């Protein structure tokens, strides 16, 4: 934290420092401080809890990394994972982005080579903070390309280091693809700007290299694949076509696409899917532009001929676009994926692909989230974009395009706040440094000096206050020390508040591992609720190594990572039907679910139940998604309406609908729950409902384990009855009920045929 504040005050020193080398030294020191601040602010979770992998996806990445480290790269590349998606298995090596695991593996082996043996878990936990330091540096480089003012770069680095929008995905333990991808994203943008500015094939190639690394790391690479062509297109439309653009774009596209096709998961997508078509189209368009440019320069200039050329370019462009549309509808090019559709129409996924809509991070962003994640940067951001408009060189066009696109995407999907954060940091830094530069200037021009310095001064003030006519009058301006002092002081206060906010958000909102829950005891001390790990450990120690666990897909990666048991479905939601099968098993009656579970060789069913503790993220609250996803495949058997009361309420108490009460999920959640309470007092604290006096009975499942706070409940699937009875009858017999006599006499007698 100190570094962030010191950076702004050090700006003063930096600008005051004399000599190039001392400035460089200062800059290096400041950047190191910023990196230190970025890393240390991400360590809350390690200090407060322990060095543990967080949430869901990181558990898979961690497991994959362990596999990579223990089996070697080739086996990892060809990894067929028979412990997930039972019994389908998953071609994991070909369906993941290996960048993250390979990075950790390289670090692991490098440290071993240096005889510093570090546990792979600690490398994974601390990878994201380490890369956040690099991201800050990349933001510094990118900002420096935008403005000559080096303090803007340092400010951008500081912002990037501690902005909660980025911290949300990069705290220690959040071992996800985004951990390294944001760094690669910013660096790729920097290299793109560099290549574009210089028209350099070398920088274009380096840009392609990091683009390749980015493709290897995160599916969000499509953002770059779309943003760079868009930038190029905007430049062309603005009449700024140049050989610099041609060289940099073509070297990036050709090499970058080749690099991206080396990743098995990407393969031929760059030439087959709509998401990648803009890049390909602009590549072709630029060839056309190059040809036209050559023709124009080679031929004597004639106004009509020029018009013809531009019309030809436009015509060919539209023909190309039409061809693309036809190729898409004919099926040569895959249309936009569901996730992309939901970017244009936020209601699309909810209707057509419930599995995408069911993920909370795919929901549209609530507006307070912008303030929560970016705080004061959100109002400095437009100012920075405005300043970019002022200059509007090629790189500023990039910032503008990025800002527009990034803002839109961040608005429709919560997780895309992450891609917006870098541009917000860059533009906010430009604005803030501009402000500070102007107001920290102690010199006031004397009116009589004005005529002399006009040439210099006008441009300076123009930057600060825009091109208003009044600014051209030299005597207008803020020269009083008091005003300057107030502005600078308030800016400093804002910066300090920003640091406070970032620290507070990081510590309170983003540092919970979600595997371990923390609560407060009445006396204010912290109480750790460790039911997840308790249950996973139970599975690890008490079940066969190949016992198949059925749970909702949210917990698939954790079961695989912590309990090391095969699962039916997990967070890699590649097979909607398989997930719907699990959804159907959970939401149907026992008689329907049991054959499904037998067919899939399920040994245990794991559910999350928060009713006792008031833990709201439990399976009953997610239940409607299971119903919806199952309904998508079996609309005749599962109907969402049946799970509501006639008045349309979603209830779990005595008034719940019969379908709800008979569903396996309901039964598993509330089985034996009554026993905890005095008769008739059973209470669900999440939904605030009083449960019926008689709890549900389970015939096909045996309760195997319930964790300390009842958050995790595990049931064992009974084997087929030894005597071919149905389980209800067998259970009734075990409870001592006699089979009703004379049952056989009703109806026609069943005759044996053999």
């Amino acid at each position, binding site marked *: 934290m100190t570094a962030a504040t010191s950076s702004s005050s050090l700006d003063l020193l930096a600008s005051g420092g004399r000599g190039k080398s001392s400035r460089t030294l200062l800059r290096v020191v400041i950047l190191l401080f910023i990196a230190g601040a970025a890393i240390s602010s991400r360590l809350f979770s390690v200090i407060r809890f322990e060095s543990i992998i967080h949430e869901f996806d990181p558990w898979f990445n961690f497991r994959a990394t362990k596999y990579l480290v223990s089996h070697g790269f080739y086996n990892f*590349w*060809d990894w067929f994972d*028979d412990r997930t998606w039972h019994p389908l*298995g998953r071609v994991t090596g070909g369906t993941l982005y290996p960048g993250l695991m390979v990075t950790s593996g390289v670090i692991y082996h490098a440290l071993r080579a240096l005889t510093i043996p570090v546990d792979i878990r600690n490398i994974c936990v601390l990878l994201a903070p380490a890369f956040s330091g690099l991201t800050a540096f990349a933001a510094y480089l990118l900002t420096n390309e935008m403005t000559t003012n080096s303090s803007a770069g340092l400010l951008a680095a500081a912002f990037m280091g501690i902005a909660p929008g980025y911290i949300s995905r990069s705290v220690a333990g959040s071992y996800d693809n985004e951990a390294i991808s944001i760094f690669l994203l910013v660096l790729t943008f920097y290299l793109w700007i560099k290549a574009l500015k210089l028209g350099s094939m070398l920088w274009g190639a380096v840009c392609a290299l990091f683009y390749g690394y980015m493709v290897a790391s995160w599916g969000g690479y499509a953002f770059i694949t779309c943003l760079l062509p868009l930038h190029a297109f905007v430049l062309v439309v603005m009449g700024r076509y140049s050989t610099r653009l041609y060289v940099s774009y073509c070297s990036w596209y050709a090499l970058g696409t080749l690099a991206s096709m080396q990743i*098995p998961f990407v393969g031929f997508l760059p030439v087959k899917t709509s998401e990648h078509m803009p890049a390909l189209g602009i590549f072709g368009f630029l060839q056309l532009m190059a040809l036209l440019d050559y023709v124009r320069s080679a031929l004597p200039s004639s106004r009509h001929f020029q018009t013809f050329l531009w019309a030809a370019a436009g015509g060919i462009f539209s023909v190309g676009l039409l061809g693309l549309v036809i190729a898409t509808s004919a099926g040569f090019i895959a249309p936009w994926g569901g996730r992309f559709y939901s970017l244009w129409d936020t209601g699309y996924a909810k209707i057509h692909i419930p599995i995408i809509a069911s993920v909370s991070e795919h929901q549209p962003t609530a507006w307070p989230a912008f303030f929560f994640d970016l705080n004061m940067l959100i109002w400095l951001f437009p100012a920075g974009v405005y300043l970019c408009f002022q200059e509007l060189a090629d790189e500023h066009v990039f910032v503008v395009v990025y800002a527009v696109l990034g803002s839109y995407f961040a608005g429709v999907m919560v997780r895309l706040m992450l891609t917006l954060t870098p541009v917000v940091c860059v533009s906010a830094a430009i604005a803030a440094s501009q402000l500070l530069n102007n107001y920290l200037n102690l010199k006031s021009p004397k009116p009589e000096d004005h005529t002399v310095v006009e040439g210099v001064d006008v441009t300076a003030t123009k930057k600060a206050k825009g091109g208003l006519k009044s600014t051209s009058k030299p005597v207008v301006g803020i020269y009083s020390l008091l005003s300057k002092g107030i502005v600078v002081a308030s800016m400093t206060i804002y910066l300090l508040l920003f640091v406070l906010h970032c620290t507070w958000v990081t510590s309170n909102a983003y540092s919970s591992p979600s595997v371990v829950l923390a609560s407060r005891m009445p006396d204010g001390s912290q109480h750790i609720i460790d039911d997840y790990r308790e249950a996973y450990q139970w599975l690890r120690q008490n079940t066969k190594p190949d016992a198949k666990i059925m749970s909702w897909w949210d917990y698939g990666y954790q079961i695989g990572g912590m309990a090391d048991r095969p699962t039916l479905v997990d967070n890699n939601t590649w097979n909607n039907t398989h997930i719907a099968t699990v959804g159907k098993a959970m939401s149907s009656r026992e008689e329907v679910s049991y054959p499904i579970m037998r067919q899939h060789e399920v040994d245990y069913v794991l559910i999350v139940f928060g009713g006792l503790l008031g833990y709201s993220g439990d399976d009953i609250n997610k239940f409607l998604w299971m119903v919806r996803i199952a309904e998508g495949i079996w609309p005749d058997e599962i109907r969402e309406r049946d799970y509501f009361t006639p008045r349309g309420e979603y209830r779990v108490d005595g008034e719940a609908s019969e379908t709800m009460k008979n569903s396996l999920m309901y039964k598993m959640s509330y089985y034996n729950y009554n026993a905890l309470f005095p008769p008739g007092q059973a209470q669900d604290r999440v939904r605030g409902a009083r449960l019926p006096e008689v709890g549900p009975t389970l015939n096909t499942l045996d309760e195997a384990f319930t964790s300390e706070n009842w958050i995790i409940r595990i049931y064992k699937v009974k084997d087929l009855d030894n005597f*071919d009875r149905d389980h209800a009858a067998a259970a009734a*017999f075990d409870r*001592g009920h*006699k089979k009703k006599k004379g049952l056989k006499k009703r109806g026609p007698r069943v005759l*044996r045929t053999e």
Partner: protein
Amino acid sequence: MKSFLSFCFLLLVTLVSAISSTGDRLLAVLDDVAEKAGYSKFLGDLESRGFKITYETPKSESLSLFHLGERKYDHVIFFPTKAKGLGPNLTPNLLLQFLNQKGNILLTLSSGTPAATSLVSLLSELDIALPSERTGLVVDHFNHDVVSAADAHDVLLLPVPRPARDDVSDLFAAGAPADTPIAFPRGAGVLLGPGPLLTPIVRAPATAYLYNPKEQAEAVAADELFGAGAQLALVAGAQARNSARLAVVGSAEMLSDKWFDAKVTKVGEKKEVPTYNREFAKRIAGWAFQEIGVLRVNWVEHRLNEAVVGANVSNPEMYRIKNDVTYTISLSQYSWDKWTGFTVPANDDLQLEFSMLSPFHRLHLSPDPAHSTPEATAYTVSFTLPDQHGIFNFKVNYKRPLLTNIEEKNTVSVRHMAHDEWPRSYVISGAWPWIAGIGATVTAWLAFVVVWLFSRPAGERVVLKKTQ
């Protein structure tokens, strides 16, 4: 060590003339221990086959089926008892638990004594129905013994039971002398539910029916009829999924010494013939107590059937799609005192399923003499794995009436092609034009570079361009 143990085992096998494949502790439950004299030949046969018989009455304090949760006996035989219940040590739940722990039960009924309620509940759990008054008498006016039951017609003479289907192995009739009937004196019958676990061993003749002598002495109303004809099972077997066996013999009397030695005469014939009862009793007890019809899987092996490195590993955990594999299973059958190779009946088929969710292959397993011994027959099949990766099971699911259930499942993973297992591009003839294209491009580029480097530029133009 292992060979030494098996040697000891073989020694033991040779010492004891015959023994059940699962154990020799037999509990006989009688109303009165003295009653055993009536069954001395039957019980003597059992003892001579190596069973150690304990006699108990239901009232006995010391009677219990379990000790510390383990079975105390391997087999139980119930003779008719007069008591309505069998007491707290033989409740239906305990009996069911006994079966669940792979104990076997031979249960006899009699028309004279109503079956104990706990046995009725047990049978009804297995979907075997007894008449509602727990007793009944089977009579047949066309197939009775004219010597002993000329008037009552309640001693049925039944032919030796042949298998119900021709793909079922013949356990009870094989080797029986022609024309020796089974005498079924004063017995009750049961109705079997439609489940696959139940097998009628002896069915009543088409003209037989069951009635209650006390209530239906005069006439049997059509809707009051409990059972008649082939629907009525006089001797029935039930085999649970864990292969525990329960046999119901409708007439306890047919196991008695009297009927072992009796001479009977069929209706319409003069000749007195000996009964088949002794041999049948031996076989039904032998079936119930796991002496015949017991199958065993000795070993299962699956291996890669390709000439590559590592193909010699047996039972690998992972294959690749489209691998050639060989699956072999070795089966033995226990017959009274020894294991012999199991030969699949002529009309039957032993099949291997290769399945993931549903079978991808269902293949005929044929005998493999190379791996067979007198004690075990190996069956084998070679096939190519499907072009689908996933977790598959080699599954032999051989469940036949009267034979031990065989459900042998071996799970393997079938992986996809690794990136270096595809044929190289130059092997594929379709790729040659493209390879030629690459070659042409490379050559043309090199040629261009050479021409470019070695052609002297026109000096003036360069200067001109530079000034531009």
